[in-house]
C-alpha cells in the first residue's frame, strides 16, 4: 500500500498506526513521486492526500484513472473535515473512498481493509478473464498482451528470448475415435505436462484448439530447445486412461534469439509457426528451431 502525503509527520503517524497490519507500507512525498512509484510497482491500494503543492491529489487521480493498468487500483483520499466539495470531486475522478484527518484508527483500518479486498477481487476477476476454462493455462488474449511486452523488453535490454508453438499430432483422430471427453482429457493432460515443465518466468498459454504457446523470456534458443524436448518426451511417454493403447505426440516449432532482433511480435509468431510447420512436415513428434537475428527476412504473418 502506498501513502502519498507531503507531510513526513503523516507518514510517521501511519507507519506507527498500521505497523501490525499485514501490508507493505510505502511512502511518497509528492504526487509526482507517487506516479513514478505506481507505474513501476504493483500497488494494491493508494492512500492519497488531496492537498499537496505542485502535483496535487486530483492530478494523481486523473492520471491513474486514465491509464488502463492503474484505473482499477483502489484509492482512498485523505481530506480535511470541511472539504466536502473536494470529496465529491475526488469521487468524480475515480476515488473509491475517503477518510478525514485527523484519522480515527478503527475507521482507517476498516476502510483500508475494504480497499484491499476490492483490489483482490478485481485482480481475481481480471485474471479469470485471461484464463482458459478447459486447461487453466493463460488464454490467447493474455498471450497477445504478454507477447508484445516480452518482445519489447528483450529488444530494449538486448536479452535472449524464445517462443514455442506446440500442436498435438492427429488430435482430430482422438476426438473421432474416443469421443470429445477423451479429446478434452488430452488437452488437459498436455496442459498439465507443459505447466510442470516450464519455469516460473515462462508464460504458458492455450493458443486455440489443440495448439499451445510458451513464451520464455531470458532463454536462448538452445536452452529453450532442451525445455521443449522435455515437454515433447513427457507427452509422448504419458499413458491416457481413456485410450491406454494410443499414445499422444506433439510437434513443436521454436524460434529464439540471443540478442535484439528488432522484429515485431507478429513476426515472432510467424517464425514459430513456420518452424512448427517444418516439424509437422518432417514427420511430427519433434522440435524444430529457428534462430532469429537482425538479418532474418520477414515471413508472411501466421494465420
Amino acid at each position: 500500500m502506498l501513502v502519498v502525503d507531503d507531510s513526513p509527520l503523516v507518514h510517521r503517524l501511519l507507519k506507527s498506526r498500521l505497523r501490525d497490519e499485514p501490508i507493505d507500507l510505502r511512502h511518497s512525498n509528492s504526487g509526482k513521486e507517487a506516479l513514478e512509484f505506481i507505474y513501476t510497482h504493483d500497488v494494491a491500494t493508494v492512500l492519497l492526500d488531496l492537498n499537496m503543492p505542485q502535483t496535487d491529489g486530483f492530478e494523481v487521480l486523473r492520471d491513474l484513472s486514465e491509464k488502463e493498468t492503474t484505473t482499477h487500483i483502489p484509492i482512498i483520499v485523505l481530506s480535511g473535515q470541511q472539504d466536502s466539495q473536494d470529496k465529491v470531486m475526488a469521487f468524480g475522478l475515480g476515488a473509491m473512498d475517503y477518510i478525514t484527518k485527523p484519522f480515527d484508527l478503527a475507521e482507517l483500518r476498516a476502510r483500508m481493509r475494504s480497499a484491499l479486498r476490492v483490489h483482490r477481487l478485481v485482480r481475481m476477476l481480471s485474471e479469470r478473464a485471461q484464463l482458459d476454462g478447459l486447461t487453466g493455462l493463460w488464454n490467447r488474449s493474455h498471450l497477445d498482451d504478454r507477447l508484445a511486452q516480452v518482445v519489447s523488453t528483450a529488444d530494449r535490454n538486448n536479452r535472449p528470448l524464445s517462443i514455442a508453438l506446440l500442436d498435438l499430432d492427429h488430435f482430430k483422430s482422438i476426438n473421432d475415435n474416443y469421443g470429445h471427453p477423451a479429446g478434452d482429457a488430452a488437452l488437459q493432460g498436455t496442459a498439465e505436462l507443459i505447466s510442470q515443465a516450464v519455469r516460473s518466468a515462462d508464460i504458458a498459454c492455450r493458443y486455440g484448439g489443440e495448439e499451445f504457446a510458451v513464451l520464455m523470456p531470458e532463454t536462448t534458443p538452445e536452452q529453450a530447445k532442451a525445455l521443449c524436448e522435455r515437454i515433447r518426451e513427457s507427452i509422448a511417454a504419458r499413458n491416457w486412461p481413456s485410450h491406454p493403447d494410443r499414445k499422444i505426440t506433439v510437434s513443436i516449432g521454436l524460434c529464439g534469439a540471443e540478442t535484439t532482433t528488432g522484429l515485431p511480435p507478429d513476426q515472432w509468431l510467424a517464425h514459430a509457426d513456420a518452424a512448427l510447420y517444418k516439424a509437422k512436415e518432417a514427420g511430427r513428434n519433434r522440435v524444430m528451431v529457428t534462430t532469429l537475428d537482425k538479418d532474418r527476412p520477414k515471413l508472411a504473418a501466421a494465420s
Partner: protein
Amino acid sequence: MDGSMVDSLISVYENDPEMAEIVALFVAEMPDRIAELKQAVDDGDIELAHTIAHQLKGAAGGYGFERLGEIAAAAADALRKLEPSLSKTQHSALLAATSPLLLACGRVRLSTAQAAA
C-alpha cells in the same frame, strides 16, 4: 512546568502504547519546528511558513493534538491569502497569521506523568 499544565497542549494518545513513542518524538521535535517557523517569519518566507502550518494542520490531530491542528488550519488559511511578494504591511500580516500557531506550538508538552516516567 511551573504549574502551568492548564496552558499546555497534551496529546490524547500519549498513553496509547501504539502511539507513545511517536507522540514523544513529535513533542521533542517541537522546538526545532518553532525555530523554523520563526525563521520563516523573519525572512518573510510565506511559502515555508505555509508549508509548516499546512503539515501541522494535517498531522497534529492524528498525534492527538486536535486543538493544535485547528490553530494550524487557521494559520494555513490566513497564510494562503497573503501575496507571495512581501511588502511592509504584509510582514505584519505574516506575524499576525503565524503568532497564534507559534504560541500553540510553544504549549505542546508531554503530561508530567509521562515526563517523569
